[in-house]
């Protein structure tokens, strides 16, 4: 099975925020979906090359809001429930806030 590692989320001026799903390890079991307090995740059928595979994905409408939807789980301090609940370790979370010192008019 060809793997696809999908990085859902973004990096902006304030930091990097991603929920990462590895299709080679994901069985589409839906544990992470059940454990997410904000219903950010769902299982969907994706194409891995020409084959179909059921995997966990971040819902389309949340992919640009990860910093806000996932912040209450405090990923900078501990592994969020989606990550903890996955037995296959298919889902991981990257959460890095940028160093302050953005100086728009301050020099």
């Amino acid at each position, binding site marked *: 099975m060809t793997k696809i590692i999908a990085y859902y989320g973004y990096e*902006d*001026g*304030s*930091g990097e925020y991603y929920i990462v799903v590895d299709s080679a390890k994901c069985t589409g079991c839906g544990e992470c979906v059940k454990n997410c307090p904000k219903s950010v995740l769902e299982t969907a059928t994706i194409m891995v090359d020409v084959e179909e595979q059921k995997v966990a994905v971040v819902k389309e*409408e949340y992919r*640009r*809001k990860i910093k*806000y*939807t996932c*912040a*209450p789980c*405090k990923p900078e301090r501990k592994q969020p429930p989606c990550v903890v609940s996955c037995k296959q370790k298919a889902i991981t979370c990257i959460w890095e806030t*940028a160093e*302050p010192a*953005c100086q*728009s*008019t*301050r020099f």
Partner: protein
Amino acid sequence: MATVAGIDMGVQNVKVVILKGGEILSYGLAPSGFEPEKAAEQAFEEALGKAGITPSQVVHVAATGVGVELASRVDSKVSVVSADAKAAVHLYPSARTVVDVGAEESRVIRCDGKGTVLDFAINERCAAGAGAFLEAMARALEVRLEDMGRLSLEAEGTVSISATCVIFGESDVVSLIHKQVPKHDIARAVYDALAERITSMIHRVGLEPPVVLVGGVARDVGFAAALKRKLEAEILIPDHPEMAGALGAALHALEKVGEA
């Protein structure tokens, strides 16, 4: 009773509060522009003038804000987060959650009854999380920022702005205008978008009512209404919300001279 001053070196405006004992004597405000040190002097002079006192009568000056190093007379510094918490509890003794939406940064603070910070979250370096978002959307809507709030209250329908970026948001607004969506509906969508982000931040530190809303954006009726909608909790807004940081700094100055 000692006379102290608090200076908040904000990105857009420098604010000054002069306090005697626990009583606010006067306020001063000057746009920071590109010469914040001058603005600080100007705001300070304005406040002194209104209070009818001379600089030497001010026993202690505490400063806060993004450009705090640039204020000319600073006897002590305090973080914006601490200043906000102190000010909120001073104005509303039951306050436990403080929301400060500034021009470029927004903060949510949870505190105790003494104004000690328990937890906080800062939204910075991304214009979509602060007042800059409203400014840019007002430009795209071709309304004045000061009018957009009232305009949004006239909204009849709901649309949404999905963009999470000031730059993309401008394009969203332009296409909504092209689709003939009435401006008051778009204005409401703008406030909803920002309020949603701020509400998420509030839930991140934990919502403990009552919530005190401060910062320049608190004056905006459109934002206050949107936040109330999204949060579904009581929101208290002081008369001079933009002065909260400076007030908190002044209260810190009081503590420094032993009159907490």
